């Protein structure tokens, strides 16, 4: 493989999401790079640019027995020709039409040998219109796939919606694609380094790429670190999207955010044991018990919280506090953390995050993977993760687009805690079945 491959960044997003604005912004900023732009037929480059190429999006099926293997024929031709002028530019930006499915673009970089040798897909950047995307996600498969394929999602036009709408949208996008970096912008104004040089498909950069990818899917979305006085406090909630919310309160020895995060795995196990129902007025206490607060239909619900000793406590909540207007009266919020949410929305496209601590049997995993690709290849958009095989000292990184999968031996695990971690972004994936069969691969 050629070390000096030219990076290609793909910009996707619906019409009006700000793709062209972002493109022009990147081109006009002084970044010392010579950029060739491959623009869709409706694009409007507003700055003088030496190399702008108009492309008709020609999506071709490959006759290789893989029904989902589609590529961009025009891109193969254009890139093959640009190879001849590779001394004239450093990077390529590719803007797709609003209705484009990013799958064929990504697959082009896997399938065609010439393209693969000379160009590297740096990442897929999806522009999301803060106001209009929520309804597009309901009615458009392309909009969902653009989110599913993204390495970076820029929520644009944030000035057109309120904070709550923004938070809701961001949570929803994270549930659909838990590996993408999400940033917010007005007028597509994001720092260039957030959208260029992201290495989204670079296996060797998998570790630096996305720390939250390593965070398991927690059954709680939020934790707050409170400094509590001794005595009876009051936890107040208003009616929210669900009739009940589960919480757990834990005592900690010091008020640090590190302690808050350390607690999370243990609290996850406690959540798995199931909750105890509490009606409004019934008391809540610290300890290894999950309380399911059953809310009044109308008006606020108050739960007395018994604090035997003053000090720092962490409150874990199933949903975000603002969704229920939650307040812990009498306590002072010192720190808080938002966790990668479990699939709280009923999305057909979502991310499944699997973590298996026990080493896997390599051949069994191969069977699991083969079956996944065979049965779900068309609806599995992207896959990323690390593999921990028994009998191997090496950490293996894996990534895929539909049925095309790459792996790379990264480095020995050394003294890092070993685990297989996989994120699958896809449509209508059977989480329980995939998870139980993955666990059956344990050596």
């Amino acid at each position: 493989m050629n070390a000096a491959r030219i990076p290609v960044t793909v910009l996707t997003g619906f019409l009006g999401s700000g793709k062209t604005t972002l493109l022009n912004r990147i081109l006009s900023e002084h970044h010392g790079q010579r950029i060739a732009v491959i623009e869709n037929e409706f694009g409007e480059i507003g700055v003088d640019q030496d190399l702008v190429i108009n492309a008709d999006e020609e999506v071709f099926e490959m006759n290789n027995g893989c029904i989902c293997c589609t590529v961009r024929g025009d891109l193969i031709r254009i890139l093959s020709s640009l190879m001849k002028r590779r001394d004239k530019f450093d990077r390529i930006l590719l803007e797709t039409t609003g209705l484009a499915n990013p799958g064929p673009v990504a697959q082009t970089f896997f399938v065609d040998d010439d393209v693969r040798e000379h160009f590297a897909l740096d990442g897929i950047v999806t522009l999301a219109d803060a106001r209009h995307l929520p309804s597009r996600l309901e009615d458009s498969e392309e909009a969902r796939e653009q989110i599913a394929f993204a390495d970076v999602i820029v929520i644009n036009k944030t000035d057109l919606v309120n904070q709550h709408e923004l938070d809701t949208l961001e949570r929803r996008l994270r549930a659909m694609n838990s590996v993408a970096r999400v940033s917010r912008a007005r007028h597509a104004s994001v720092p260039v380094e957030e959208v260029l040089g992201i290495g989204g498909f670079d296996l060797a950069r998998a570790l630096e790429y996305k720390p939250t990818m390593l965070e398991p899917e927690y059954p709680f979305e939020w934790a707050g670190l409170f400094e509590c006085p001794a005595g009876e406090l009051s936890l107040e909630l208003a009616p929210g999207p669900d009739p009940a919310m589960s919480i757990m309160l834990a005592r900690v020895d010091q008020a640090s955010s590190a302690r808050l995060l350390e607690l999370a795995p243990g609290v996850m196990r406690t959540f798995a044991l199931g909750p105890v129902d509490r009606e409004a007025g019934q008391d809540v206490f610290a300890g290894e018990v999950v309380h399911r607060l059953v809310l009044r239909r109308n008006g606020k619900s108050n739960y007395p919280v018994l604090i035997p000793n003053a000090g720092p406590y962490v409150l874990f909540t199933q949903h975000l506090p603002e969704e229920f207007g939650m307040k812990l009266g009498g306590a002072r919020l010192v720190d808080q953390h938002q966790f990668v949410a479990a699939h709280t929305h009923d999305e057909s496209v979502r991310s499944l995050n699997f973590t298996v601590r026990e080493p896997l049997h390599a051949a069994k995993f191969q069977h699991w993977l083969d079956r996944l690709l065979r049965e779900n290849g068309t609806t599995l958009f992207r896959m990323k993760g690390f593999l921990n095989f028994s009998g191997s000292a090496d950490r293996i990184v894996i990534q895929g687009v539909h049925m095309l999968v790459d792996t790379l031996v990264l480095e020995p695990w050394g003294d890092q805690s070993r685990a297989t971690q996989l994120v699958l972004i896809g449509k209508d994936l059977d989480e329980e079945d995939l998870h139980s069969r993955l666990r059956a691969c344990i050596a």
Partner: protein
Amino acid sequence: MSAVLDSSGVYQHWSAGLDDYPVVLSVCGRSGRVAVGESGGRVSLFGRDGTLIRRWRAHADAVMALAWNPSTGDLLSGGQDGCARLWRGITVPDHEHCKIAFAKAWVDHVAFNPQGTRLAACAGREIIFANADGEEVVRACDHASTVTGLAWRPNGEQVVTACYGGIQYVRADSALIKRRFKWSGSLISLALSPDGNVAACGCQDNSVHFWRLASGVDAMMSGYAAKPALLSWRADSGLLAVASGAEITLWSFEGQGPEGMRPETLDGHDRPITTLAFAPRGACLVSGCRDGEVLCWLPGRSARPVFRHSGDGEVTRIAWACSDESSSLVIAFSIGEIHQLTFRRDFK
């Protein structure tokens, strides 16, 4: 520019340097002049002896295609600026006679018919036919996708084009698609046998598909390790050479073949082959490689190359010019070098 006689009887006749990447190369059958289309948009014109006659900016962006009118000596060029241009002059094509503008896209293919009475040019899905003076006769956008191959049928009245989904005959007087030969695959190149009977296409999915045009019967050769984009026919239409990766396969169209037959292979390159061309007369095949090596073969007579030549950089294009006594080969290298070699035909 002195002639150097090689031990195999080949002269390196001349060499010349350009400061740009030579994208495309064409030798005039009448005058032996060599036109080189460059990535910066210029065309360089060399005389038979290697003298640089003229170098000019023919297109605002890279030159993609060149063709000589076989009867008048006019030169036709196609570029990434979305135009085809006809170059004409009393002794050399020294001025732009006319310009044919497309709606958009790169002009990838230009060709004169064998009679030199018509020309065709393609950009994206659009095809334009014009007379020998470049006056547009008709244009159409009826192809299903970008045209990836263009060849005139021997009668000079129709072209064969390739695109995703198959090949078709297109009439030069109406641009109407007269007949389609469907194949749901991505065809990336087209080579029409010199007798006009067989059209062969390289496919993105590592196969070669061909049609016997009279009957419409088609067949495919699959199992290539890399995209077989380069195809060339021997002058007698009896043999098709296909380059895939570093290997050349030869399919015989004589007798019953090639259906059900095993191809011969020519193994001599170490890196992917970048250009492949049979001589327009005789049986000599030449292949150029990414490592700058050029091999000449006489398929059927020897499985080993009969002659080697090399230069710096990648071989980008090769073109032949043949007379009764000798053959000459023009080779373009990616660093901008142009070499011309002359030898007795077929090393007889």
